[in-house]
């Protein structure tokens, strides 16, 4: 992102906001991932420890989610860039 137009105080504020958001988004992703993988993988309550099967499922669920995020992120970035370009072209008309 281009902050070159901002003054120093605003640039700092922007930086702080981005860091806050990053932290918030990570915590949100973490808790939703725990819920998602728990719901999909853990359904045997005959023991209080995770079974080998459940453990494996949780690891695969997490890895797969990260790959999912990466792929969706790539497509999202492409399409969002196209959308923004389309809009700024419209705005200039």
């Amino acid at each position, binding site marked *: 992102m281009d902050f070159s137009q901002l003054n120093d105080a605003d640039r700092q504020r922007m930086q702080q906001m981005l860091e806050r958001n990053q932290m918030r988004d990570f915590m949100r992703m973490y808790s939703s991932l725990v819920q998602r993988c728990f719901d*999909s993988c853990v359904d045997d309550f005959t023991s209080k420890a995770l079974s080998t099967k459940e453990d*494996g*499922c949780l690891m*695969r669920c997490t890895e*797969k*989610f990260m790959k*999912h995020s990466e792929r969706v992120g790539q497509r999202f970035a492409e399409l*969002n860039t196209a959308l923004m370009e389309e809009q700024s072209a419209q705005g200039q008309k």
Partner: protein
Amino acid sequence: MNFGGMFGGAGASGVSAQQSSAQLMMAEQEIEMVTDLYNRVSDSCHAKCIPPTYHESDLNKGESVCLDRCVAKFFETNKKIGAKLQEISQQNQATQQPGVGLFG
């Protein structure tokens, strides 16, 4: 309000302190909106494309293609509905029904 695209950039150059703060607020809002859109796309497409049986940790071919199409379709849906809402609100404005023009 423009529904077809919600992320109009704040593009100006050579700005005063006041303009700068206004730009900052717009940038913040834009980031919030894009983040929210991303989260919704990610959740929807995960639910639709990734079956909750984790036999493997890789995305297989079918899942990958599904995700690509899902993201594209979500954007298209966003655009379609935005245009439709705008059309409806313009119709309402044209027929002079006060109070109905929800999105003016």
